[in-house]
């Protein structure tokens, strides 16, 4: 029961409230997307069935349009735009990540369009949900406050739950949705508990304020540890780090392929964004807490992901596990990000890895979609002899697989290389240990990537029919973009590294 003066106090606080100034240029990308999704929602109501393919066009153009302000922001000489006294920040990091989200979202739409056209789907809602989830991601990149981070997280998750369960008649799809939802909500609940503790010990939800107070030592350090772990768990779930990965395989397998692509790339990336932002701006002094945590997470993630992936027969499920273990490589440098000198390289490596991983993985899904149009099967064996009747697809899949396996001169290798580099730059014995684990894992990984290549090149066609595969234009476009990007990132790593290098988080405590 509140005593009177406390209430008075609150009233006073309320009275002093002044409306914040809003930098519309800074918010432009989000606004564009928001407008786009409203447009889609409304048009969906009035548009007749035959014209609904326009919705995909509209939403794709929305994303491209949203790229424009991102570029202008990048070019504008204002380096950091801070709103709501620092709760919502537009810095290089967020711009790079926004670009990544928008483009991967664009590719996902390209993947989806043909897929969604076939089969009785509620198209309008599909695009609407996709866009809103993307909007949540855009927000995530700029959020610098526990509240906004939480909102952004739910904003990008809830539509994703529905997308996962998209095939309403398909029990697998339902199962995927329910599992994803239940665990997701549970994880975010745990995270929220952690956040509440954070708020309690620091009396602020603003990350920068938290940063000053949360340390691995001193008063309340136990609470700090608890809080940090719980918060991180919430996002470790998003990036499906072992042992919080359990939802990923089932969901990926059950959800429609384009959605899986979206989940495995964009929402995973969003999780990493949140982790990076928290680590760099909220817990910079608490590295004693999160470094060991990330060490274990990363080691477990890459190892378990790999050895489970070896067992899979379903291509999507295999990719799910592979993306889990890839996540382990992304986490790798974070295990030393607290050490002097390796903070920047760790950030760079995470961003670069996300960029390259996104391109490659989207490419993989593009190929899977294209092939499954003919084979109607998710089995790895259905790729048998692909090279003999669809050489182009075969070569592309080989490229993507090799890139994921980290074989030069394809994108994957530079990502892995930079990860190793920033890990070892700390020169601590823990780092070397983790590096060895990573090296061994990168070999094991070839076990299943190579398996796919083997199917494509060295195995006979399972059902012997070698009819050509008709690839719709959008899919072809997606394939083109991703494969070219994969090659370019590999052969001219400077390109990818340029963006990765730009990404600095404003307000991050630089060591």
């Amino acid at each position, binding site marked *: 029961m509140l005593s009177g003066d406390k209430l008075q106090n609150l009233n006073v606080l309320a009275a002093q409230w002044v409306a914040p100034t809003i930098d519309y240029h800074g918010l432009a990308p989000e606004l564009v997307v928001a407008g786009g999704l409203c447009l889609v929602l409304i048009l969906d109501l009035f548009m007749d069935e035959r014209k609904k393919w326009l919705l995909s066009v509209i939403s794709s153009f929305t994303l491209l349009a949203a790229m424009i302000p991102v570029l202008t922001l990048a070019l504008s000489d204002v380096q950091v735009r801070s709103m709501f006294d620092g709760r919502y920040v537009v810095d290089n990091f967020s711009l790079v990540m926004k670009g990544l989200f928008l483009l991967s979202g664009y590719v996902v739409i390209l993947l989806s369009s043909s897929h969604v056209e076939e089969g009785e789907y509620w198209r309008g809602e599909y695009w609407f949900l996709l866009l809103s989830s993307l909007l949540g991601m855009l927000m995530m990149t700029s959020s610098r406050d526990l509240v906004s981070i939480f909102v952004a997280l739910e904003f990008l998750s809830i539509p994703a739950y529905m997308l996962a369960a998209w095939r309403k008649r398909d029990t697998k799809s339902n199962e995927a949705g*329910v599992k994803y939802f239940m665990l997701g909500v*549970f994880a975010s609940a745990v995270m929220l508990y952690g956040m509440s503790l954070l708020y309690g010990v620091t009396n602020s939800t603003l990350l920068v304020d938290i940063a000053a107070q949360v340390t691995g030592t001193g008063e309340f350090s136990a609470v700090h*540890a*608890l809080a940090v772990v719980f918060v991180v768990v919430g996002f470790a779930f998003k990036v499906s780090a072992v042992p919080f990965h359990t939802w990923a395989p089932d969901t990926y397998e059950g959800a429609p392929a384009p959605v899986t692509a979206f989940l495995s790339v964009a929402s995973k990336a969003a999780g990493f964004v949140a982790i990076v932002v928290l680590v760099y701006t909220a817990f910079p002094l608490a590295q004693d807490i999160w470094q060991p945590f990330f060490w274990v997470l990363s080691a477990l993630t890459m190892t378990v992901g790999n050895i489970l992936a*070896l067992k899979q027969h379903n291509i999507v499920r295999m990719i799910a596990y592979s993306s889990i273990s890839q996540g382990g490589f992304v986490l790798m440098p974070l295990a030393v990000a607290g050490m002097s000198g390796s903070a920047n390289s760790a950030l760079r490596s995470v961003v670069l890895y996300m960029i390259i991983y996104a391109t490659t993985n989207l490419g993989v899904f593009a190929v899977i979609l294209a092939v499954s149009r003919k084979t109607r099967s998710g089995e790895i064996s259905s790729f048998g002899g692909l090279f003999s009747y669809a050489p182009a697809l075969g070569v592309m899949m080989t490229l993507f697989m090799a890139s994921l396996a980290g074989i030069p001169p394809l994108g994957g290798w530079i990502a892995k290389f930079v990860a190793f580099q920033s890990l070892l730059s700390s020169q601590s014995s823990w780092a070397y240990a983790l590096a060895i684990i990573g090296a061994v894992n990168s070999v094991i990984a070839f076990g299943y990537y190579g398996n796919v290549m083997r199917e494509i090149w060295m195995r006979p066609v399972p059902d012997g029919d070698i009819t050509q595969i008709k690839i719709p234009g959008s899919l072809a476009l997606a394939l083109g973009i991703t494969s070219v990007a994969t090659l370019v990132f590999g052969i001219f790593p400077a390109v990818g590294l340029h963006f990765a290098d730009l990404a600095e988080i404003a307000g991050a405590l630089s060591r």
Partner: protein
Amino acid sequence: MNLLASESEVLAPLASGWFLEHAWLIPVIPAIAFALIILIGKRLPMKGSELGVLSMLSSLVFALGAGYQWIQRTNSATEEQFVAPVIKSWSWWRSGGFDFGIGQHIDGLSILVLIVVAFISTLVQIYSLEYLRGDRRYTHFFAALTLFSGGMLAMVLADNMILFLLGWEIMGLCSFMLIGHWWEEDANSRAALKAFFTVRIGDVGLLVGISMLYFAANDWTQENLELSGFSIRGISAWALSGEPNSTVIMIAAVALFIACIGKSGQFPLHTWLPDAMAGPTPVSSLLHSSTMVVAGVYLVARLYPVFYVGLDIPGGGGNLIVIIGGITIVISAALAFVQNDIKRVLAYSTVSQLGYMMLGLGAGAWLPAVFHIFTHAFFKACLFLGAGSISHSASHHSFDMKRDMGGLRKVMPLTFTTWIISTLALCGVFPFSGFFSKDEIIDNVGYNGYNLFMIIGLVGAFMTAAYMTRATYLTFFGEPRGASAGHADHGDTHDTHDSHNSHASHDAHSSHNAHDVEQSHGPHESGLLITVPLMILSVLAFSSGFLNATPFGESWERMKLWVEPRSVEVVEETHSGGPGESLIITLPIAKEGQSKSVCGSAQPETGICYAPQLNHAPFKWLKAMMSMAIVFLGIAISWILSTLLFTKSDPRLVGLTQRVKILGLGHKLLVNKYYLDVLYEKVIVRSIAYPVARAAYWFNQNILDGLLHGLANSTRRISGWVYKNVDQLVVDGTVNNSATLTKSLGTAAQPTQSGKLSQYAALLFSAAAVAALVLVIINT
């Protein structure tokens, strides 16, 4: 370098000449000829054989020219002057500070052997023109012969060990090709393989020896002579300089001698030589009697200082070389008794003669040994060619004395005469060449204090005389048998020599068409192309001995003058290399008998010494008579026995070996060649080729390769999850072993992915809780 540019007061300038300067052409010619034969030989009228013969002739001319000029050179020198070898060398290749030269090292020894090789090769090639006419691989045969001569000549005049090794190996290759000339028959190719392989084993010694000598000597030679440690001259000088560490040089000498054992068919590696008789007869007479097999002996003579110091030859008593030589003499001579194949008799006799040479070298009788190379070449070549001539024209290409020969003296008078001359020479009967060399060896061996081995030598002489008499008797006396009696058809000769010497049947079918004519009428004398070389050789077999006829006093000892290097110290003017420009510092000549002379193994005060001080036994007629007596005794006994045994078939002797146990055992032992082959082939080779290699391979497949397999298996049993996958994984062997391991781990991890939502949630939260707990504990 120009050797004539010698300014020295004391010293008369040494004569030289074009042939000496350009001796390196001698091996080059055959090499070129070989290339030509390979390339265009088939198109030539005589299938390339003419190229071979011509090249050999020209080499011979060059060699003789060089020999003549060498003699002039020695004559131009003063009595005690060191006659410098004519050395030219060019840098061949350079690597890591090492300089590998190529060049010639011409002195008496190399000239002598050059002439022998060139001469015999020429004759043999001429002989082969007839002998192999119509052979399937006529051209290849001549190509190989020519290449062989090239290699041998190159080895002989090599100025450094690398070139020496090169020639050495090329000879090995050619012997492989020539023994296996009729490779359709398995036996021949196996004999070829055996020969190459056995020699190759010895070559390990050569490699090791060369390396050791190089590294031991290089610094010294570079410093004092500006020569690389490979240069023969440098090594010799170094060996005598008293520098070398005794164990190093000893090991090096032993290593080198192992190579000689292999090449010169000394005990215990002699077994390849008799089998090598599978080759065509000209090959046997050229490679395996007169030239190639003496390469080992030549190596010892060439690097004599190394052996001299390393094995302490002047010490007397006994050393590795004499022991091996002595053993070889006796055992091979004994083996020669039980052979029915005439070529094998000769082969074993060759082995034992080589034993004599080794014996001589080992006992410090350098000159007689080298001289024996010279004489032996002629009479042994002659004997082989004679055997060839017999099989060629009389016995339908069979070499079996007991079955297909006998009484041939009437039908082939020429062959018979030459054979007898050479045999006498081989036995060392007085005026014949063998006497002057072999008797000298025995004499000097004794004189240098190796009395035991002198006795062995005499025994050997006795046995030699005996088995040669037996062979002669079987071949030329008694009644004609088998093919030589004219009533032999080919089917007969084919199955006669099934087991050990099936080459005969190959003589047959290889030159089949050429001999259909001769099969019609019986044995007859061979054509001129065969007999002329025989006659030339027999003349030399008789006369060559007089070149160093010690009995007739100093003036006859030409060889000593021409060939033996003089062991005086040479003061090198190191800035201008080459001993041609060398000063004599007059020293008291070391007295006879004191082996630690100034040029012995003791460190000379000044200057450098290239050859050890050797002693020469003064010739005594008494000793000569004694050995003569022994020889004649051998001839007589053997003659009587042979007559009784083979012609009269005296009951007391026939089947004696069956009746008397001891003799039977001995006979058995000999027939089985002391079971050495059994030891080598059945025991050693088998044990390597089969079990060991199998074991290694098994190790490879099951241990190394299967290591990860094993790991995977064990993990699987422990976890017991996926034993059913094993078959799949192994059967479709696509999954890498380590992947198998990790896969089974994956299976072990799968239950975490149960698909049960509540379990997922439990895992999620418990993980978070545990992490939090641990970190809380850590951080407080």
